[in-house]
């Protein structure tokens, strides 16, 4: 084991401030990214877990929201590999509970997501269990995420009001938390009963099932050629990636992240630099004795640079540990955190860069290792 690594392990208390500063800097940025990405992930949960092989959107849109003409559906069926095409329908509704004695009344806008409760249907998320599918087949039955129950003021078996009509909360699902408006799932039939579904000339996104899912990318290209810019077909992965990228084009997120990044780097560099300086000064006589024995200044600089690199690695490990804690805490309050690989790689590079910059700044202290001072 090298001198730098042994010193870090042996005198870990001395380096703790730097390690924690790095970890907090990393955590600051990464948890913010995780939160934004998690929120984005919640919005796209229904895409990510859709059994659809392709999504067909209006040509200029990446998100689910804008509309396209319904006649695109028969166009898509012209491709021999397309098995099923259904519109993805999302609506808004007003929710109210029937408060039991002592319970407060809740009124909230909710997102309504319309599914076809038949196993294998292209609109039915692939993680809905059998009992939930059966429950959705009943008229006026709805299903919500378990974390939304409290916000909606109901429990399984309760009745509630949507747009003035009574619905039954028949079951719960997991992994569909929402920070803002809760998601309420219902069948197309129930949606019609609640006046939430229309068969007008325009539809939102289209969910497409293919004969061979492995050929999704090829078929997407063929459909796009066929469609002549009337629509655009996306594979699920491409759309999810595009949505993530789109999110970071939002200026306020970029400003916030940029600000956090600068604050994080600044705090990280200052504390790590000062800690390293203190630690080097504590061993300055030992370094001076190496100088006396003829070890060059360049070699001592290398020891410090290696030490700061290891401090960076330790900070990275600490970030990982803290992040697990923060994620657990977030999940406990129903907040999904999602860390894409690029964010983890960016933070790893950022922390190691901070450590190396701090190391470079600390090299000046080594000049104090004058071996002549050891003679008295």
């Amino acid at each position, binding site marked *: 084991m090298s*001198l730098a690594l*042994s*010193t870090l*392990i*042996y*005198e870990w208390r001395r380096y703790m401030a730097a390690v924690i500063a790095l970890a907090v800097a990393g955590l600051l940025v990464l948890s913010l990214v995780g939160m934004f990405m998690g929120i984005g992930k919640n919005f796209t949960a229904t895409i990510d877990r859709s059994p659809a092989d392709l999504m067909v959107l209006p040509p200029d849109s990446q998100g689910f929201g804008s509309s396209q003409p319904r006649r695109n559906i028969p166009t898509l069926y012209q491709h021999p590999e397309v098995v099923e095409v259904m519109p993805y329908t999302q609506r808004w509704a007003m929710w109210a509970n029937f408060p039991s004695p002592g319970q407060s009344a809740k009124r909230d806008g909710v997102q309504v997501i319309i599914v076809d409760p038949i196993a294998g249907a292209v609109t039915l998320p692939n993680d809905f269990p059998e009992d939930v599918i059966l429950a959705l087949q009943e008229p006026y039955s709805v299903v919500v995420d378990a974390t939304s129950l409290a916000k909606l003021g109901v429990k399984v078996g309760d009745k509630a009001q949507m747009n003035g009509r009574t619905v039954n909360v028949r079951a719960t699902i997991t992994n569909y938390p929402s920070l803002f408006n809760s998601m309420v799932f219902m069948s197309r039939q129930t949606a019609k009963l609640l006046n939430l579904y229309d068969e007008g000339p325009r539809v939102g996104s289209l969910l497409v099932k293919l004969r061979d899912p492995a050929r999704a990318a090829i078929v997407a290209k063929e459909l796009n050629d066929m469609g002549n810019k009337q629509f655009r077909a996306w594979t699920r992965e491409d759309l999810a990636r595009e949505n993530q990228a789109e999110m970071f084009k939002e200026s306020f997120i970029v400003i916030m992240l940029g600000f956090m990044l600068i604050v994080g780097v600044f705090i990280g560099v200052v504390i790590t630099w000062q800690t390293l300086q203190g630690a080097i000064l504590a*061993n300055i*006589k*030992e370094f*001076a*004795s*190496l*100088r*006396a*024995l*003829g*070890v*060059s*200044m360049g*070699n001592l600089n290398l020891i410090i640079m290696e030490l700061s690199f290891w401090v960076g690695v330790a900070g990275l490990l600490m970030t990982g540990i803290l992040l697990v804690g923060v994620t657990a805490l977030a999940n406990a309050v129903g907040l999904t955190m999602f860390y894409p690989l690029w964010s983890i790689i960016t933070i790893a590079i950022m922390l190691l860069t901070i450590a190396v910059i701090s190391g470079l700044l600390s090299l000046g202290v080594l000049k104090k290792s*004058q*071996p*002549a001072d*050891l*003679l*008295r």
Partner: protein
Amino acid sequence: MTGKLAIEAKGLTKSYKIGKIKQPVLKEVNFTAYHGQVTMVMGPSGSGKSTLIAALSGLMKPDEGEVIALGESLWKKKKAKIDQFRLDHCGFIFQGFNLFPALNATQQVEQVLKYCKVKKGEAKKRAVQALTEVGLDKRLKQTPSALSGGEKQRVAIARALSKNPQLLFADEPTSALDSVSGQVVIKLLHRAAKEHGAAVIVVTHDPRLEAYADRVIHMEDGQILSDTFVNRPEDVPPSAPHA
């Protein structure tokens, strides 16, 4: 090699500036040391003895004068070359032991050998050998916190000796040690001179060490007051102690 001139200094002058006053610490000092001999430099604090060995060993440039070490003019070299000279030829033992707290005894020695471009396996062998020579074969894996003062100084000696230096400088090597440990340390320095043929230069004000010296130099106020050979090298005439 024993008895040959190892280091020769002529007209060493050095002064420190304290405020606006120039305080001379070395005044035209001439000095010689021979291979295989323990040369002891004694004198009260402030007599300039530490500055003398700093100048002799390439740690501090004198204002004037010349040092010929192993036949090379030390202060005419560039800084990097002086470092290289020390790495190749010099060992140091300080009053404080200056061992890295994180490294065990073997690693302390290996650390220095690494910079002497000694291969890993060879470095380990030489480290164990050097530590065995100073009687620490049972303490190879101990870190400084588990070693007594005397043992720490022996590790520092092993670290210095492992390079097989031809010049060994010791500055007050026993002043932080009890008398028994001090005896062990000075015997080791004596052996380094006799068995390895090193020129050992010891700065001390511990009179008990005189018994192990081949030559005793007394300094005061930046000048050499007396220079007495206990064992005179064969080729040094009695009339010319400073060569």
